[in-house]
């Protein structure tokens, strides 16, 4: 497909066209700092009005993960009368995630692999299969806590159907999949001109010069750097500040650990088995009957998270477990930084 562009003024019409067929979620303004109106806070939500979409957003506390991987998800329904007859609950509706930054697109590719590998999880995959992902490229780092360039998520190779590159008055539109090409049909795109191509080139050059590496080693060495740090006192030192609150897990775009509960209907006619986000930082996460706890120490839990993000997921799926978005650091009251930790362990044994 030839390169195409969409005029910024035509964006809302495209979003409206998408909204006619699908649930469309994207970044919107959540609140503005009272004392500094330029300080705007954004969140991912289902769009009610195409005009609410804010493609100029920078950070969100939570990424678009919850549309694919909801904080609570019903898995199985059964009856409590004669025969339980347990049945899977698999719910999905045509959805578009519009404005997914490269880090979050990369994270979605990681989740796809985690839920899809070995024994597939249709509860996730059915939502995923029904969701189109429209990416939005970044021209400059969103925050000092991010290190997407290091983690290989700034230039994603998958996890999106369309990639948008905002360039002043026009948006460069590149469809990466058949679904992406179908979505773009309802946009008033026109073929890119020579000027557009030059602007696209300029964007790429600026992007390249705006992002800088923050780790003193390449991503491919991270698993080994972590392995060598296993017995380091670093974990104890950092974990002293940790409150085991789990905010890092809640905000992480690739965290997918879960707990399960059975909930009973008020009239006792049936029950539903539901999963919800869990956190490896909570002290009960690895506890078994008899009170034995295999990661009792805060430091061993913190180390587990850092290893899972930097080593285990990568080794198991070939995809990064940490996309370098910086959300966990920004959410952490103790300001524990995964980036700084990965820097720090390079110098320890």
């Amino acid at each position: 497909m030839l390169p195409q562009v969409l005029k910024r003024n035509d964006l809302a019409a495209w979003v409206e066209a998408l909204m006619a067929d699908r649930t469309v979620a994207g970044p919107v303004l959540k609140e503005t700092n009272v004392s500094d109106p330029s300080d705007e806070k954004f969140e991912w939500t289902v769009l009610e009005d195409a005009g609410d979409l804010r493609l100029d957003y920078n950070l969100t506390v939570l990424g678009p993960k919850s549309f694919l991987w909801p904080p609570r998800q019903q898995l199985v329904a059964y009856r409590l009368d004669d025969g339980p007859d347990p049945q899977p609950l698999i719910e999905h509706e045509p959805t578009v995630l519009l404005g997914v930054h490269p880090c979050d697109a990369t994270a979605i590719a990681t989740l796809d692999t985690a839920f899809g590998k070995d024994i597939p999880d249709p509860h996730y995959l059915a939502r995923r299969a029904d969701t189109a992902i429209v990416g939005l490229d970044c021209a400059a780092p969103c925050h000092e806590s991010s290190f997407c360039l290091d983690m290989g998520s700034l230039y994603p190779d998958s996890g999106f159907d369309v990639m948008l590159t905002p360039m002043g008055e026009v948006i460069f539109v590149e469809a990466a999949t058949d679904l992406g090409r179908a979505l773009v049909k309802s946009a008033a795109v026109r073929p890119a001109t020579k000027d557009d191509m030059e602007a696209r080139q300029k964007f790429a050059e600026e992007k390249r010069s705006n992002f800088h590496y923050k780790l003193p080693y390449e991503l491919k060495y991270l698993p080994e750097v972590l392995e060598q740090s296993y017995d380091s006192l670093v974990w104890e030192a950092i974990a002293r500040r940790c409150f085991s609150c789990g905010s890092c897990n809640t905000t992480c775009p690739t965290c997918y650990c879960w707990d399960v509960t059975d909930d009973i209907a008020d009239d006792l006619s049936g029950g539903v088995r539901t999963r919800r986000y869990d956190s490896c930082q909570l002290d009960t996460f690895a506890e078994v009957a008899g009170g034995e706890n295999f990661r009792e120490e805060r430091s061993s839990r913190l180390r587990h998270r850092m290893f899972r993000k930097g080593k285990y997921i990568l080794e198991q799926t070939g995809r990064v477990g940490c996309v370098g978005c910086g959300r966990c650091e920004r959410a952490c009251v103790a300001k524990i930084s995964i980036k700084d930790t990965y820097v720090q362990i390079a110098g320890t044994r």
Partner: protein
Amino acid sequence: MTQIDIHKGAEAESPYVPKMARILSAEQMTETERFFRIEMEEAPLAYQPGQFVGVTVFGVGEAPISICSSPTQGDAFELTVRSVGLVTNKLKEFGEGDRLGIRGPFGNTFPYEEMKGKDVLFVAGGLGLAPTRSLIRYVLDNRGDYHKVTILVGARDPSLLLFRDELEAWTGRDDVETLVTVDRPDKAWSGNVGVITRLFAKIQLDAAATYAVIVGPPVMFKFTVLEALAEGVPENRIICSLERHMKCGVGKCGHCQIRGVYVCREGPVFTYEQVKRLREGI
């Protein structure tokens, strides 16, 4: 890199839906341990020694439980459940004819093929006898395939001994050596007394030809492994079964993870050599 077919996976059968099973018989073995013989209502459970299932009490929840029988015992399978919490306490009320949900079987198996022709030493402490029994029964039902068989069983006191009838039957066989010990004897107890490692002094091991299958609580496991190592059993022939918090059984929920290993899929059976390398294993 793992390649994923999202659309195919979206159509896959949910691994979280239990299948219906019926209890054929149940028996309170000790005050806290209940034994069940269970049959799937549709296709029989195709399992191997060492695997486990997820047991659903509808309206309450699910718990991972080791299969304590051997596939050589027929289509039905057996479980021994210790009541410690919500699901396992509720199971105390379950008996013949009651229906349960079963998921699985999950996990890997004891290396029963690889063990053929070798000596087998079983060391089971407390509830560890349940998973171990799946292999004991398998080995006894294929007795000719294995060389010398020794079974060491320990419990805190005589009232906590599981499978007492079978222990007696095994003790009576001349092709198996079975020794039972308790930490705290009662008046009626005439057998061995003391921690299970003391039984090692009473047996003859051809360490180089032996597979030692050791399953029990962490402290028992640790000292028994020391004993087996001291006898000269190689680290890769000391076999154990690990217990972890588990919510899914299929490598998704993250609860059972030790370092990079999902115990529910790559385990629960490991060699001591593997467990040692995991560091957070014991």
